[in-house]
């Protein structure tokens, strides 16, 4: 037998019974068969089995759990659906996982104020559907939207395929109810379009990765549903031509909602899964979408097609109807997971650079793959300058994993040199923690830790994530 990790073999902590007593029956999971499936999130090669999982149903249960953890100084990791890609909801040894996935109620859709209020376990796709039912629109659409929770989206400040025109999750948060590290509850925000009463404290918790508080209720902003939409697919013989096209579109002052890019390897993997007839022989494709007033949409679609052709697109296809557009977007959303078809381990990076540097970055990634003799597929939100170079490797091959480490180091250095960021949307968590200091600098990093210390002096909320 392989020696089991201590938190798996050790006796269950003596506080489990007391915790169970403080919560309604059935909330606390402790059997190994129940805990093992919570040992990881969507990030490769990270796994720690927690001591217990609490499946909270109400804010008061969340508060009781956090208070308990605070009393006993037990590490507590918030969790939505566990689709995070930086290790944010990976448990801490001997600690608790507080799962919000069962707090699933949509509380209100206010068509007069264009807002939606809900609990944190509501899925992103459910928020989008509820908005749509009211003739409204919730734009942020991470690739994982069918299963990611809205609480997880806020905690990661997730982006999506529409970031270019509509921004990211932060741009749609009007208010948050948060359980703080001592178990107390605050409500931050309101339905007003403008609000300058003191610091914008809710913003502190957006993108806080579960380190500052647990979100138990959200007030989201909705926008009117755009009346028209047009989706195009442009095929390219080289990655540079695709990158030039995107720069061209932005320079022409067209702001489409989507400019998504897939390289040849990614196209092949996506097609193997989705089977929707993507051209697997081209070097790159760009999925472009514009929405808004019908006349403007028409004009922008034509403009984008012209620019693509001028930059050497082999072909520009127009989606025939909504159904085809949806198939294309859905296929694109599967890109990361589809790449897992190629090699056993899929390590995804999330670097983002100013858009003028995109072509440089794309070329650098290709060169890095060659230099370290690795296979790297790239896709991403090209319009946002956000690339997902994905290293296709095998975590059980130690020699190759060393080269992976080196390649990631190179990519991070180049990103920072170009004035970019190590993570555009997936967060720091555990995966990006080693690189955060070089991006923020000493002072920036120290400030981050001072904020954490002020809100969570005992360090019980997601300790060891983002920074040590």
């Amino acid at each position, binding site marked *: *037998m*392989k020696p*089991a*990790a201590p938190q*798996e073999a050790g006796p269950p902590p003596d506080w489990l019974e007391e915790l169970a007593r403080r919560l309604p029956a059935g909330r606390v*999971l402790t*059997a*190994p*068969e*129940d805990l*093992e*499936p*919570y*040992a*990881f*999130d*969507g990030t*490769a090669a990270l796994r720690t089995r927690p001591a217990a999982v609490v*499946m909270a149903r109400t804010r008061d249960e969340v508060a009781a759990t956090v208070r308990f953890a605070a009393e006993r100084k037990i590490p507590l990791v918030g969790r939505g*659906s*566990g*689709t995070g890609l930086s290790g944010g909801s990976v448990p801490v040894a001997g600690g608790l996982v507080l799962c919000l*996935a*069962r707090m*699933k109620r949509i509380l209100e859709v206010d068509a007069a104020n264009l807002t939606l209020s809900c609990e944190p376990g509501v*899925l992103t*796709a459910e928020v989008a559907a509820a908005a749509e039912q009211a003739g409204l629109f919730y734009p942020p659409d991470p690739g*994982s939207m*069918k*299963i*990611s929770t809205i609480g997880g989206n806020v905690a990661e400040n997730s982006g999506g395929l529409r970031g270019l025109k509509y921004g990211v999750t932060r741009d749609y948060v009007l208010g948050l109810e948060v359980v703080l590290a001592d178990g107390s509850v605050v409500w931050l925000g309101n339905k007003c379009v403008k609000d300058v009463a003191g610091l914008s404290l809710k913003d502190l918790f957006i993108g806080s990765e579960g380190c500052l508080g647990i979100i138990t209720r959200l007030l989201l902003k909705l926008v009117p549903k755009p009346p028209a939409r047009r989706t195009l697919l442009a095929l390219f013989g080289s990655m540079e031509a695709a990158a030039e096209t995107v720069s061209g579109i932005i320079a022409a002052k067209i702001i489409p909602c989507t400019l998504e890019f897939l390289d040849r390897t990614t196209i092949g*993997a*996506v097609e*193997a*899964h*989705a089977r929707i007839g993507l051209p697997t022989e081209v070097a790159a494709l760009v999925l472009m979408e514009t929405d808004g007033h019908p006349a403007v949409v028409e004009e922008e679609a034509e403009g984008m097609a012209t620019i693509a052709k001028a930059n050497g697109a082999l072909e520009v296809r127009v989606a025939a109807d909504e159904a085809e557009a949806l198939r294309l977007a859905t296929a694109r959303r*599967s*890109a*990361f*997971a*589809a790449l*897992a*078809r*190629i*090699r*056993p*381990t*899929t390590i995804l990076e999330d670097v983002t650079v100013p858009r003028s540097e995109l072509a440089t970055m794309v070329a650098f990634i290709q060169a890095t793959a060659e230099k370290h003799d690795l296979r790297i597929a790239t896709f991403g939100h090209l319009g946002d300058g956000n690339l997902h170079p994905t290293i296709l490797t*095998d975590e*059980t*091959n*130690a020699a190759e994993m060393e080269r992976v480490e080196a390649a990631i180091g190179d990519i991070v250095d180049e990103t920072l040199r170009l004035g970019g960021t190590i993570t555009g949307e997936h967060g720091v968590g555990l995966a990006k923690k080693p690189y955060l200091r070089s991006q923020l600098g000493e002072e920036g990093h120290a400030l981050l830790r001072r904020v954490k210390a002020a809100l969570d002096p005992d360090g019980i909320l997601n300790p060891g994530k983002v920074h040590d």
Partner: protein
Amino acid sequence: MPDSATQARDAQASRPGPGVTGGARGFLHDLDYSVVQQCIHCGMCLPTCPTYDETGLERNSPRGRIALMRAVADDRMEVTRAFGEEMYYCLGCLACTTACPAGVNYAELFERARAEVERLGVLDHPRRRWVRRLVLGGVFTRPRLLRLLGRLLWLHQASGGQWLFRKLRLTRLLPAWLRELEPMTPPIRPRFSDRLIRPIEQPAGPPRRRVAVLTGCVQDLIYPEINRDTVDVLLANGCTVVTPPLQPCCGSLHAHNGDLANARGLARAMISLFEEERLDAVITNAAGCGSHLKHYDRLLADDPEWRERAAAWSAKVRDISEFLVETGFRAPRGAAADGPGRVTYHEACHLCHGQGITRQPREILKTVPGLELAELAESTWCCGSAGVYNITQPEQAAKLLRRKLERIAAVGPRVVATANPGCLLQLQNGARAAGAAYAVVHPVSLLAAAYRAEPAD
């Protein structure tokens, strides 16, 4: 994946070898590690899983179950009773496989996991052992015995015995668990496939293809007419149809319930029965059988004597709808007025998820004169039949059935079409209990009826 074999070896090399586990390697340990490793725990399968939808617990999700299997394969966890129960709470509907972008082979993982549960006997219980031996080892490996039982059951039902039995409350004498099953026994047909179909039938014109039809075991007893309809449709499309009167069970019941040894034996018997025939295709009309029959290659991959024969077999198996569309079937002629009207289509899990067949049955339905195809919401969501799931997990099965019936009621069809005997039975029972007026039929029966109604020209 050009270099997958090397990777699999790499992965194997760094894992504890057979010596470490004392040589008693189980079904999950013997599995190529890359199959276990394929899941990157992205969670994209979660929203499609009916059991996760019910409980919201990771362990009841595909990702969670795979994590448990991996923990066993990595020697981090024992195969416990809870593990066994989890594997049997899974429907085996394979919705997760359709959803999974990473191409995880859940069907194989699931069969192996259940086989491991049985090998170690963690769910062992005298009654369970008795039922398994009787059903898996006894009845469903002996086609003659199955038919004999079928005839007895028919007599019992047809003679009013069943009514009397229930009326006299004799059922009270049965153990509680059997009592609950009694009303679920399907109505057995008076004549089985061997009496309805001749061993070889020729089309009216010159034959274009030669195919075999598999009659199935449950299908043969309760829906032999569907087999007749299948043969008729094939004849109408220029096929010579070979239907051996006595056929073995395909073994899917065994494979899905952890009895891989009997499953392999039945697969060999099935291949042998048809090997001598020069066939263009082997046709099945039962989705559950089809998705298993197509994987004989995987089932016998470790058997050097049978590997190639099984691969040749798998390449020939076709679902009836798949075969008809692939070979360009003839659309029936006729007046719309005589058609079935509003029809909705429920997708059997093992057709849409197990075999990826979604378009073909609809294409067939659309050619039937006077048929209006109305789409069913959540058409690919399991109806709860799931092999013997409605017997082993009645509560969860009933919830799924209720959900399905609600979706059907929202469409308000005259007919529900579905291509698997388990689903047909489940929906017919459900519709009857709910007092619904629609019929539940196999799509091929609608096509056969349309051919029969063609005006003579």
